[in-house]
């Protein structure tokens, strides 16, 4: 998703352990952007720092701003030469390079943040955010005064549509009158259009705005300047951007899974598999803003607990925003089908294509 054709290659040798003994495990992590982005890349960096703190003898090699090209292959080879036995290619576009390197080094474990097949030394993982947007909708549905929510989407792919749908369904579960207006910018990082989209939503009387773009910074700050409220995405740190209007948000928490994988590799029992986790696993809810009452917080946390216990809001009957029954009673959309949405749920103002 990240446009990063141009290299600012910094091979940072971050050594989190200060001991003189040879490390018990060297981990290599390849990032598409900067770990200072307070977003996607930062979430992996923080998780690996946590792993190094929790497991003595673990050393982490990190490479930032690595393009999604053959360059990534070279970086991973270099890490293996420096002793890495576990590699995290953390961007979707590393698939081809990572799979090639994994074929050449059967003794090295790979955990790739994306999708596709897993193999003996190649695991696949990702945080499933769609259903996690449901409690975000609960928060928005309770906080709105105009009953109009806004949502800025970079590209109308299935995963993004799923986020919006769960958001609206969560909002509707606590507020029957609520609508969600969707604006598509046409790019994951077209910042000027994101500002324009946020302004357009505010012009239409939306008072709570959510988003699915690379970095939420522009939208959150534009909404804050117009006196609106926002729900963040990609980073639980984004609340610094909106001291007044921040409600809550979603971010990634990879540390527990990474720690388990590192332990498995050290014990010699690593087996690659596909692991997708939502709330309670790889996805977490950010702290609430100052304007969110204890009652709203309790209701959001209840919705989150319900989801952690297995509640799936994408269970029929569900109607789309044109009144068609898209999911018959009893049928549901599983967490492995979150990319398959091609409709907007009832109450969403927007057109898919």
């Amino acid at each position, binding site marked *: 998703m990240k446009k990063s054709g141009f290299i600012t290659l910094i091979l940072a040798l971050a050594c989190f352990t200060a001991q003189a003994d040879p490390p018990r495990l060297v981990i290599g992590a390849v990032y598409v952007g900067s770990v200072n982005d307070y977003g996607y890349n930062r979430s992996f960096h923080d998780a690996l720092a946590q792993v190094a703190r929790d497991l003595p003898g673990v050393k982490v090699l990190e490479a930032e701003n690595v393009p999604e090209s053959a360059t990534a292959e070279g970086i991973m080879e270099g890490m293996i030469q420096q002793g890495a036995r576990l590699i995290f290619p953390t961007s979707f576009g590393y698939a081809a390079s990572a799979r090639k390197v994994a074929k050449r080094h059967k003794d090295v474990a790979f955990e790739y943040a994306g999708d596709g097949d897993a193999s003996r030394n190649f695991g696949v993982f990702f945080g499933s955010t769609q259903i996690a947007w449901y409690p975000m909708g609960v928060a928005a549905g309770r906080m709105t005064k105009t009953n109009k929510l806004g949502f800025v989407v970079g590209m109308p792919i299935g995963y993004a549509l799923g986020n919006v749908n769960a958001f609206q369904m969560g909002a509707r579960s606590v507020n029957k009158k609520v609508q969600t207006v969707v604006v598509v910018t046409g790019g994951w990082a077209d910042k000027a259009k994101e500002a324009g989209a946020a*302004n357009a939503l505010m012009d239409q009387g939306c008072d709570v705005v959510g988003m699915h773009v690379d970095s939420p910074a522009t939208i959150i700050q534009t909404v804050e300047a117009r006196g609106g409220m926002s729900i963040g995405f990609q980073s639980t740190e984004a609340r610094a951007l909106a001291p007044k209007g921040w409600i809550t948000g979603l971010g990634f928490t990879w540390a527990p899974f990474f720690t388990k994988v590192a332990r498995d590799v050290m014990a010699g029992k690593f087996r690659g598999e596909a692991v997708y986790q939502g709330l309670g696993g790889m996805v977490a809810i950010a702290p609430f803003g100052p304007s969110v009452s204890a009652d709203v917080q309790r209701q959001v946390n209840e919705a989150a607990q319900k989801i952690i216990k297995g509640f799936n809001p994408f269970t029929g009957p569900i109607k789309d925003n044109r009144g068609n029954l898209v999911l018959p009673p009893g049928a549901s959309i599983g967490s492995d089908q979150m990319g398959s949405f091609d409709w907007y749920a009832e109450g969403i103002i927007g057109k898919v294509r």
Partner: protein
Amino acid sequence: MMTPLALGVLAGAVLSGTSLLYATLGETLVERSGIVNLGLEGVLLMGASVGFTVTAVTGNPWIGLAAAALTGGLANALFGWLVVLRKANQLASGLAMMFFGFGLSALVGAPHVGAVIVGLPKWRPAWLAALPWVSASTLFNYDLLTWLALPVALLVWWVLFKTRWGLGVRAVGESPGAAYASGRNPAVLQFQALGFGGVLAGLAGAHLSLSLTLTWAEYMTAGRGFIAIALVIFSKWNPLRAVAGALLFGGAEALQLQLQARGSLISPFILDMMPYVLTLLVLLAWGGSRRLAAPAGLGRTFFGSE
């Protein structure tokens, strides 16, 4: 309170059009001296990145703005060294400058991705805020660059068409040989035009990162430099028509976002194409008379009087 569509589009047109206008004015100056800088996109990016970085480090957006302007001027001076002094091909050098700008801006901006900055301050006179609808919209709540956009366009027009220096620049753009024969130094005039044009392009980039979006992201200009090059042709190398061009394109972009926010039933993909379709239509409609308007020496390298 809901803002009427026309007001929303106008407000969006001004915000999005500001950086377009500065970029178009800068390129107009440069092209009037006979040089095409296809690297404008890269200059915008460098301005946005350096402006943001300096603001993040110093905490002062005015220092960031000055640094962005200086960066734009220096970038164009480097381009001038290539195409004026070294007589390199302008189109190839321009494209190389664009990629250079992509890389350098990413390198400079990388450590400050995600930094929170205080942007350029905005003012709205009280009597304007008192108008109906205005207080609830972004209308007239502008930073210095937006307030100065129209005066700067007038200034560029005045300098180009009403001063001796402007006459020299235009003479060089039409026929460097004739200008040289009449006692002007084409290289000096082209360097000066490139320098001022670069400052304007740097300011255009800074408006994006220091006011409109308050963030730096790789390739955040998303093609605005190329739109500005098209707008130079649209405005027939006239700084005053550039104002209309920037507003029209900014308005088309704002219109597609505003229509979506109003629940329009048009496909978002079609709405997304609107500004570019508009650009194509305008270029098509004005294509016939383009030869009359373009500086005659545009894109040609002057090898001296030998």
